[in-house]
């Protein structure tokens, strides 16, 4: 889906699997470059979502970063060894 035109220089982990990344790029860019489109499941219907805007507005790229949920992957810069996971959707039953 996306091809890199510049080399990677570090590794991060996504759901426990190592992927190549470049320090300083956004986590969202690193995931997309690794072919990952599915960032989270929605809270309402549990359907899969990936990023829409990549500029901090849409909140569709929410993931878990170092155990903390609801982080906007487009605003989290990659650091070597960063660990992130898909964000499960279900909201507490109402």
């Amino acid at each position: 889906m996306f091809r890199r035109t510049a080399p990677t220089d570090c590794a991060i982990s996504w759901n426990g699997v190592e992927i190549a990344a470049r320090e300083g790029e956004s986590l969202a860019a690193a995931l997309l470059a690794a072919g990952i489109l599915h960032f989270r499941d929605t809270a309402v219907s549990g359907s899969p979502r990936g990023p829409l805007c990549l500029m901090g507005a849409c909140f569709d790229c929410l993931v878990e970063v170092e155990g903390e949920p609801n982080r906007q992957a487009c605003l989290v810069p990659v650091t070597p060894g960063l660990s992130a996971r898909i964000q499960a959707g279900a909201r507490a039953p109402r």
Partner: protein
Amino acid sequence: MREVALLVLGAGPAGLAAATEARSQGLDVLLLDENAAPGGQVHRGVGEFYRPSADAPGAAQAREGLALIEAARASGAEMRGGATFWAIEDDLTVSWSEGGTAHQARAGRVILCPGAVERALPIPGWTLPGVMGVGAAQILLKTAGLVPEGRTWMAGQGPLLWLYAAQLLAKGGTLAGIIDMSPAGAWRQAIRHLPMALMKPGPLLQGLSWMRRVRADVPVIRARDVEALGDGKLRGLRFDGREEAADLLLLHDGVVPNTQVTRALQGCAHVWDAAQASFRPVLDEWGNASLPGVMVAGDGGGIGGARAAALSGRIAAIEAARALGRLTAEQRDAAAGRPMLRRRSEMAPRAFLDALFPPLGMDRVADGTVVCRCEEVTAGRVRAAVSLGAQGPNQLKAFLRAGMGPCQGRVCGPVVHALVASSRGIAAGDLMPLRTRFPVKPITVAELATLK
């Protein structure tokens, strides 16, 4: 609490120019942006990752961006990246978060330069992973050097669509096709603004040259409706009865001012801009909003593009220097004379562009299409709520939760607004916009607890 003469929100062209000018007037300046690097939307990654070759589309603009960034860096303004602004109070106490810690400062003046956001283009299936904004793809190109591969389609309209298509081709990318959804007769409305636009023909000629370059390589198909197909991810498109395979679909329908902060300010007046089909804060020629001490510059006050944004940032900073006692009114007027003239000239093509790409109408949006992505509310449910008596976006929020999710109406706000107006058969400007509330970005209780 920390005190600062001028607080600037947003390190795009408007904020960078405001900070630089204010420093040269002797004000201490704090400049906040939630992105790690300065530049804003247009100059994303400039001077860092984004180094277009001299003849690439957008290269001249990137040079202007680099100059703005370097000037702000050299000015002595305190530039804080990764700083998410979330509130401003009447006494101009500003709150923001950095890396999980909340901060506050009291400012003598605030210049808000939050820029624009892409106007959402709701189509069936647009919540599928693999459907994104054209602006999103451009950000990937500028900040990470990512070029789409596989079957990439674009759909919608507007100058940014053509610019990005040209940028992508110049980087060796390919496009399966562009679905041009622009209304067929728009040029008839636009033509009367052409003489004005031709006073500053550069941007139009450039736009035409991008279009020519793209059309030479990419099939451009006119269609009124597009549907994204797939199960769990995008697999194809349907338009005008035809189906095509697709790996990536990029949507665009122009940009709208980001009024998330100004709409949360009690008593800050906004007006409906019919030409741009969006709300903007009421501003005087200097950028003063209707609340004391609050100023707005750049696309957040109405879409004018990168150069106009930088000029209005500069003008606002000159006025802030007057308000804070650094300049007399005469000195201010003298200093702002040239930037005001230049801004007028930069704005010349705007009316033509606005008329050429009027936002796509809501009557096209089918009942089954999701309009509020966070709360998964469809157009049909909005229409049903309107027929049950919901008068506007603020009531709809209570009826359906539309606009209540984490994006706080950033994406769905303009869409739901237009949808309610069209279902009620009234002008969009006659409806109150969705009220926003502080914090304008979600913060955790742990972050709040770090405030001293």
